[in-house]
């Protein structure tokens, strides 16, 4: 029966049962449902399902092809891992939000038309914000509100674009589009917001570190990768994306170096990773699109693993600030190992998943001759290793001993991290497992001496740079701080500008109001003078003078008659 439900919708419908299930059943439910969804998806043949026409538009709620399947598989796997990681949570709202959010993400990548995409797009936004709000407190509430506004704005742009597109082309099908009219630009912008393009990115670094320990693991998987999928589906080969993506790989890593909240460091690093995928979509060759999809697949696993390890630290220690941590390898040895596996994967060490995925994009960029972009991506690769590969494990688990002692992470968290770590290594060791499900046929060998030794040189010399800078105390210490980013504009800049201009605006308004009131008063006075009790028009005329004037008129009439 479950197999007949569209992918994603199964999770959304099943989530409705969570509040009424007893505790033990609910725990099992959150893991079994996405597992059943994955099983149903594996059995699903490519094709269009459940298509129908409504108000003259052709709806395709379920389009299954190789591109959507890559994302469908990994979204289910991420939902299973995140659910295991959240098994200890006793908050039904979070469980429901997590499952509806995962279901909406899955639904979005199988949407064959723009309206269906829009529905899942907004469902993702609404469900996921509860994972931020569930943290409780003023900061999470405000951050969630900003997140929701941005996400809903993306949906509104998508719907506006879809309506215009339907008006112009007569079709709501979600296929390859060209940037050239307002409709496609609106859709492109909607995708760009969720993909955290530069200047549209701050919702990510703002909200993800404010979410609950388990919520961030869900958040890291779906929204941004659904956007990567949407770009790969709608705008492959759009050259602008190459430069947008290159910028995304480079600028967040500077922030990652000086950020103190280690989950925010990971959020900046997530932004950097999206850049690699966006470059792949922009290049648009089969190999580059394979790179983008493969990178998304591998990335979801290791990024979730890193967020899980930092979440475990936050859960046990109560803080995730680099300035207050250190030496935790003694208390949390398994979490440390899992974190290092995630760090090695995101850094693209040979034998880890990041290596076989990123190699595709880098080679595709080189084959197409984008030398400067390639150099930026290499810089970003070294930077990723620097802040995600070294900084995260170093400041949390090593560095100086903070004196903090705690218990190892709960068993369910360790199991979830263990599964993710196993998959990171398995994909890295056995690349055909990933290459075999990519959207286009691929003949590529990542493990050549040139690739392996070149990558090891890049990484080890980056490690050497870190070691030198730490040893000679040049490396900037972790400091309690907030670093200004583009969100300053709408969190401080515009409100401050309004506050600054308010007295002048108020005075101008008062002046305008005064002038209007004065004019009105003068007008009323004039009317009163003319028609008021003492006014000219209201004067009574004595009978005598009336008779005189009648006599004058009659005399005048006679005179004119005789003339």
């Amino acid at each position, binding site marked *: 029966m479950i197999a007949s439900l569209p992918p994603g919708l199964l999770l959304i419908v099943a989530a409705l049962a969570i509040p009424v299930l007893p505790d033990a059943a609910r725990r099992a439910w959150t893991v079994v449902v996405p597992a059943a969804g994955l099983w149903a998806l594996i059995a699903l043949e490519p094709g269009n399902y459940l298509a129908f026409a409504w108000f003259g538009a052709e709806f395709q709620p379920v389009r299954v092809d190789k591109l959507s399947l890559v994302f469908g598989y990994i979204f289910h796997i991420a939902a299973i891992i995140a659910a295991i990681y959240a098994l200890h949570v006793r908050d039904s709202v979070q469980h429901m939000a997590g499952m509806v959010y995962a279901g909406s993400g899955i639904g979005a990548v199988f949407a064959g038309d723009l309206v269906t995409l829009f529905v899942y797009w907004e469902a993702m936004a609404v469900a996921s914000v509860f994972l931020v709000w569930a943290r409780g407190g003023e*900061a999470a509430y405000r951050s969630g509100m900003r997140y929701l506004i941005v996400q809903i704005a993306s949906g509104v742009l998508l719907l506006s674009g879809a309506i215009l597109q339907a008006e112009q082309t007569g079709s709501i099908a979600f296929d390859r589009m060209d940037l050239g009219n307002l409709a496609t630009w609106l859709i492109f912008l909607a995708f760009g917001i969720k993909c955290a393009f530069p200047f549209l990115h701050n919702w990510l670094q703002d909200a993800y570190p404010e979410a609950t320990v388990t919520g961030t693991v869900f958040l890291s998987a779906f929204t941004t990768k659904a956007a990567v999928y949407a770009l790969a589906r709608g705008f492959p080969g759009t050259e602008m994306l190459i430069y947008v993506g290159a910028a995304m790989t480079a600028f967040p*890593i*500077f*922030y990652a*170096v*000086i950020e103190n909240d280690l989950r925010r460091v990971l959020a900046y690093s997530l932004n950097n990773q999206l850049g690699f995928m966006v470059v792949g979509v922009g290049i648009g060759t089969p190999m580059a699109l394979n790179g983008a999809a493969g990178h998304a697949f591998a990335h979801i696993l290791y990024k979730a693993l890193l967020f899980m390890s930092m979440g475990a630290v936050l859960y046990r220690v109560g803080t995730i600030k680099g300035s207050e941590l250190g*030496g935790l*390898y*003694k208390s949390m040895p398994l979490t440390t190992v899992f974190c290092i596996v995630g760090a090695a994967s995101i850094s693209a060490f040979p034998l880890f998943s990041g290596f076989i995925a990123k190699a595709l994009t880098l*080679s595709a960029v*080189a*084959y197409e*001759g984008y*030398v400067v972009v*390639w*150099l930026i991506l*290499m*810089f970003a690769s*070294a*930077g990723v290793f*620097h802040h995600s590969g070294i900084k995260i494990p170093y400041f949390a688990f*090593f560095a*100086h*001993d*903070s*004196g903090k*002692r705690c218990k190892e992470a709960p068993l369910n968290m360790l199991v979830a991290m263990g599964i993710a770590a196993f998959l990171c290594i398995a994909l890295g060791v056995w690349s055909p497992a990933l290459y075999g499900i990519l959207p286009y046929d691929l003949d590529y060998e990542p493990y*050549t*001496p*040139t690739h392996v*030794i*070149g*990558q*090891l*040189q*890049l*990484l*080890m*010399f*980056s*490690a*050497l*740079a*870190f*070691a*030198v*800078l730490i*040893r000679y105390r*040049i*490396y*900037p210490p972790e*400091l*309690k*701080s*907030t*670093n*200004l*980013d583009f969100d300053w504009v709408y*969190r*401080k800049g515009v409100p401050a500008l309004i506050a600054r201009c308010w007295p002048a605006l108020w005075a101008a308004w008062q002046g305008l109001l005064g002038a209007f009131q004065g004019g009105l008063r003068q007008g009323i006075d004039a009317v009163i003078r003319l028609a008021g009790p003492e006014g000219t028009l209201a004067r009574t005329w004595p009978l005598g003078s009336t008779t005189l004037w009648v006599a004058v008129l009659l005399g005048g009439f006679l005179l004119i008659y005789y003339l």
Partner: protein
Amino acid sequence: MADDKRPEGEREYWLDRPGSVTKVFWAVVGVCAALGLLDFFYHKHAELGFDGSFGFQGWYGFVCCVFLVLAAKELRKFLKRDEDYYDR
């Protein structure tokens, strides 16, 4: 390290011992030297040309990371605010 706050009497790990961190440092230097020398022993299949030059990935990675950290350190002068900056 000097600012360690290891409780008295707790088990001493290898990394706690004086000199261990120095050993790690020189191990990294050794691995880098070995990887650099490896370039003599195989033929590089360069994809862009210059990336096949001797030790390119090595020195590029080193320079990039030093630049990244020093630039980020300078950026702090412009970007760093108090932790409660947005709450005020």
